[in-house]
């Protein structure tokens, strides 16, 4: 099995001014006086992780444990403060509800807007347009403005756009909790078929039964540190125990 994601000693350090500066002028004055103290915050600390082709890796941890930061490092959004990230192939992050959509545009127009935001070309989108609409079950509403859609419809459209092309790395952040049961099953089926074709998936979910049902391996993050890594049932069990204490 080939490695698709390699994280070597990743640390992410956020730096925020300790005091809030209301204005540029105030900040400039304080900066000259060397009064700006920064509060450093390590969101991730020396993470080493290897994800192989076809793995579905679940990430568990409390709010603020660094799960989303880890996903950002893998989706190229954050360049880590320290360490090295190496990726192989196309990363497809699934956006949260509605991000990258425009309410006044129709569903069809939004497919092009959202699809190009994900890095697809106009031509690519045109050739798979019908397929995207069909999977999202949107045939009747595709030419009405997005503002008339329900949140479930928007989620379906978003999922469909992000997964019509088989990515090499798929990133799912709390997205499987939307839509109706029927559509969720369809999503799961699609993720599993990708897995069969070699796609590696990173899945973050508060719902540990989701992780247990789908993942082949899990990691537990706590305060930016990797506490455990390995078999899903064991990692989830350790995480649950820590929560009870």
């Amino acid at each position: 099995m080939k490695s698709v994601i390699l994280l070597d000693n990743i640390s992410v350090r956020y730096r925020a001014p300790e005091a809030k500066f209301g204005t540029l002028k105030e900040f400039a004055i304080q900066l000259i006086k060397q009064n700006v103290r920064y509060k450093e915050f390590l969101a991730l600390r020396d993470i080493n992780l290897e994800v192989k082709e076809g793995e579905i890796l679940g990430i568990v941890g409390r709010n603020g444990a660094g799960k989303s930061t880890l996903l950002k490092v893998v989706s190229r959004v954050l360049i880590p403060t320290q360490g090295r990230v190496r990726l192989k192939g196309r990363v497809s992050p699934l956006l949260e509800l509605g991000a990258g959509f425009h309410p006044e545009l129709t569903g069809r127009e939004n497919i092009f807007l959202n699809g190009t935001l994900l890095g697809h070309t106009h031509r690519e989108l045109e050739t798979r347009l019908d397929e995207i609409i069909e999977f999202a079950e949107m045939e009747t509403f595709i030419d009405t403005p997005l503002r008339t859609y329900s949140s479930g419809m928007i989620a379906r459209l978003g999922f469909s756009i992000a997964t019509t092309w088989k990515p090499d790395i798929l990133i799912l952040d709390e997205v499987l909790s939307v839509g109706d049961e029927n559509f969720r099953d369809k999503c799961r089926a699609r993720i599993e078929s990708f897995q069969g074709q070699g796609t590696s998936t990173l899945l973050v979910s508060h719902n540990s039964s989701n992780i247990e049902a789908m993942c082949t391996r899990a990691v537990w993050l706590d305060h930016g540190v990797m506490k455990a890594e390995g078999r899903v049932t064991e990692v989830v069990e350790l995480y649950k125990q820590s929560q009870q204490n």
Partner: protein
Amino acid sequence: MKQIQTLQNVEFTYDSQNRRSPALEELLDVIQYRDLIYQLIRRDIVARYKRSVLGVFWTMLQPLGMMLVMGIVFSALFRQVEGYVAYLLSGLIAWTFFAQTTSAAIFQIVWGSTLIRRIYIPMSAFSISSIGTGLVNLVLSLIPLLIIMLAVGRPIRWTIVFIPFPILLLTAFALGVSLILSTMTVYFPDVKEMYQIVVQAWMYLTPIMYPADILPEKYRFWLLHLNPMYYMIEMFRVPIYEGVLPTADVLIPGILIALATLLVGWVYFANRADEFAYTI
């Protein structure tokens, strides 16, 4: 069968420690994402007029309305300017392009910040698409401008074919300023509000509504020649309104300022872009 693979054998397509220069990388990425720029421009134009009856005609009616108001107010004041409304409108269109695109770029980076926290996008696409939207509006406003020229009896001369050149320089200058302003906005959100005041004051300091020779002689040279927008407006206005080509003393500084601003803006933006996700 277990396959042992040493790290060197794996071919990675992205390596956070092995990257080209930020300015070059941003440029290559933005070329790859060119369809996104088209979609963003389309979204801006389509979404703006979607619910209005006259639609895109508003782009042409807006400068006409503005000119009508200012024309009535100021034409009595500036009787010495021949065909005052044509003088006003030719300057105003260039100014509106600059003011609108730079403000839109700031707005876009704020809108885009929700996205760039989640997916990778070459962020200069937001500034470039703002400029693109402005260009569409600028070209559309040329139609009412030509109508007004004929209406007030200013001849349209062959020099009009020179117009794409000043538009190109204006675009380069506005993009450079947009990139610098968007970068600053990421660190200090107040820039957005501050710039609205600056742009107002800047407009009154630039001879758009009034002829340059009403500026007090003592300060005139400095007021004009230290103002980059003076060159941009002159290069655009002279071939239309006066029917002659701009002279070298306007053209050369104009070209240098436009290209230097774009270069500085691009390098500054690209070098900071990695940090955006940390601050936004």
